[in-house]
């Protein structure tokens, strides 16, 4: 048995197209200042101008360059996605794996905590928290992570519970290995595909949630966000500007989400059939979307 689902991804068309789209958006985000003609916050001199050579997608109601804002919006989306993916999956792995390995009261405490967290409607809490504290990007990242780790922790725990009963773990224990060695050499390597899947899932949810919250107005007004752009564009649907304002933004958001979904689906199929139960669990906490 030597299955490495991560390697299989390179041979899967779905995963490849997902990766290419994601790489493209990433490229846009990284090189945003070079690709855009002007700063996204600068007033260009005219509002609601149609697309032109200077302003590829025209300008918005504030006279800002839409193309430039689209590029910088990708930065926000991807930043939130990456940060939430790493933060929440690190938490998931730590809590999930340590619960499975230590068991006892510790495990029961964390698993009940996970149950409690999952039952809380996260959007409402986030709106409330953002209303009391000043909305900012770091706060958003922390809030999103705080609400997305429990699902992952539950999956990780169940997987570690099964992994730690494997014979090679027993064999390592008969060499006198401590849990640190077993975790680093036996469990984490076998968890890698699962952790990747969880990270992608959490990234996708983070992109969606960030846009959604910004759309609802719960975001730092200074941060450029696709969700906020769409909300602003919607206010001007009586003019024709929405074609160049709303549609490209919506398209960019959809593409990001679709590419991440592609990766997710592909990884699921590639993973060991025995790990497929993961998919069942993974579908459940989707109600926040």
């Amino acid at each position: 048995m030597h299955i490495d689902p991560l390697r299989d991804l390179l041979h899967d068309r779905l995963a490849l197209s997902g990766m290419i789209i994601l790489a493209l958006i990433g490229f846009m985000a990284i090189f945003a200042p070079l690709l855009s003609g002007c700063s996204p916050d600068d007033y260009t001199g005219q509002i609601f101008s149609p697309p032109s050579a200077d302003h590829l997608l025209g300008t918005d109601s504030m006279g800002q360059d839409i193309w430039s804002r689209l590029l910088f919006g990708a930065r926000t989306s991807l930043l939130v996605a990456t940060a939430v993916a790493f933060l929440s999956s690190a938490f998931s792995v730590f809590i999930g794996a340590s619960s499975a390995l230590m068991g006892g009261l510790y495990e029961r405490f964390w698993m009940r905590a996970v149950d409690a967290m999952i039952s809380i409607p996260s959007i409402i809490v986030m709106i409330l928290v953002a209303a009391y504290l000043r909305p900012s990007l770091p706060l958003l990242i922390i809030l999103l992570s705080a609400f997305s780790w429990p699902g992952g922790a539950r999956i990780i725990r169940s997987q570690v519970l099964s992994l730690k009963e494997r014979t090679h773990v027993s064999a390592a224990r008969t060499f006198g290995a401590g849990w640190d060695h077993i975790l680093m050499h036996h469990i984490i390597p076998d968890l890698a595909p699962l952790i990747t899947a969880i990270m992608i899932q959490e990234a996708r949810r983070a992109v969606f949630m960030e846009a959604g919250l910004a759309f609802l107005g719960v975001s730092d007004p200074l941060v450029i966000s696709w969700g906020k752009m769409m909300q602003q564009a919607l206010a001007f649907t009586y003019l024709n500007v929405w074609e160049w304002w709303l549609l490209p933004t919506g398209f960019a958001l959809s593409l990001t989400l679709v590419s991440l979904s592609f990766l997710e689906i592909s990884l699921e199929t590639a993973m060991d059939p025995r790990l497929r139960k993961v998919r069942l669990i993974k579908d459940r906490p989707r109600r926040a979307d």
Partner: protein
Amino acid sequence: MLQVRDLKVSFGKAEILRGINLDLEIGDTISIVGESGAGKTTLGLSVMGLGEASVSGEVRFRGKDLFKVPEDDLRSMRGKDIAMVFQNVEDALDPLQRVHDQIAEAIHIHQSSSTKDVQTAAKKLLLSVGIKGDKARAYPHQLSGGERQRVIIAMALANDPDVLILDEPTASLDALTKADILRLLRSAMVGRISLVITHDIALAAALTEQMAVLYAGRIVEMGRTAEMVRNARHPYTRGLIRSFPGMTTTQDLQSIPGRMAHGLGGCPFHERCTQRIDICCHETPTLQEIEGRLVACHRGGIVPLLEVRGLSKSFDSCDVLSDIDLTLYEGETLALVGESGSGKSTLSKLIMGLYEPDSGEVILEKQKVHRRDISFYSRVQMIFQNPKESVSHRMNVLDAVLEPLVVHKKGTREERLIRARKALDLVELPTTDDFLERYPHQLSGGEVQRVAIARALALGPKLLIADEPTSALDPSVQAKILKLLMGLQDKMGLAMLFVTHDIALARKVSDRMAVMLKGQIVETRATNEVLSNPENPYTRKLVDCASGRSEQINNLEIFKAADLWS
């Protein structure tokens, strides 16, 4: 009657006997066993006063020290009071004389009777050993080996000696002739002191009541023959018995590693001994009485390596093991047999600390195991049933073998590499870079199991717990793995707890066998005894099924498994 006191014999600088003590009375029969070169024959010759060597100590016969009596007196005693049957049948008879005349000569030397009487006596003697008619008048070369042996025995008995020394009396005889000679010897030995010098343990067991094991000129173990054969106390005695192809032993033959060397400091056997400690290399152990047996060993004979006392374990409310007592001696293989669900694997996992016991204790080398730490795991290792699962699929051969060393933080990376290669050599795997970089799924089942064994051996354990190590392998690979394990036992003195449900397999590898039923050990005895005469009805059922007689016993009471389980 015959006393040997601190007998030392040396040829030039080579000391052959180093202080032998024996006390024998009329009717005593003792066998002297040991490898060639141990000094067995020298001992026999010295008792005869025939040794052409510098001798110290004394051999007293009827109170007279044979080394001090004049040569003439000694000569009159030889043959008459003390007679010897020599080892080499070919050389002991004069080829130019008829056997009848040679017997007559032997009688004539010691008795001054008429020629006619002597002739009659010789004829009678030959008749008593079964040589009659023309054969009595034959020349030695006209007789078969067995007949010549009879003549030699007749010659030794010619003057009705009190002490009879038999030096390899049946070597080079076929089984049938041997049986005849054995019968003859048994009757010849009645009413005398007999010393049987042999390396044939079956012969020793058949002829003598006592046995002394000689090693490099010293007696290392002495006691009642039957008990010693059943339950050897000195590692050397066990080695001898293991390497002897008896009809009752079921285990494969195992040799004693190394070769005998005379003149070693400390215990003479220490170089080949698998349980030696520091003192063995410096001080010579004296023969001491231990439970009715004389043993010369600093450790008091073969030591118990692992003891399990009153071990119990239950999962929830289901008792898996109850009150298990088990002793595993140094260097032996104990087979743990029983059907699946009897708790065999649980027991081995409890010993390894993979489960926590509810009660009871595990004692390793006479020390209670409280916490299993690095030092415990470097002495006890385990091999698992399915090799492909026990070696992580993410580790290549090298990483897998290095893992225990990494866990134990032993040495630098270079030293670890050397140890890993050594371990792979031990299990007869290649150590080429190509092989070291392979992953378990690129190897055959047998190869992966070898890798698993190499991992266990890398730490140099004293005890190997093998949990069904071959059940996932096909028969020919299984045979190779078993041979390997037995070879490693020879080389390294590994003790093994061999967990298996296959009693036929256990029969080939184990010295002793423990039979488990419903979490209890119902029988623990020597493997051959368990198999030939199972005491417990459950064991009998297991043995009968394993030997392929299950169809025949289908209708018998024994097979009512329900009774056993109720």
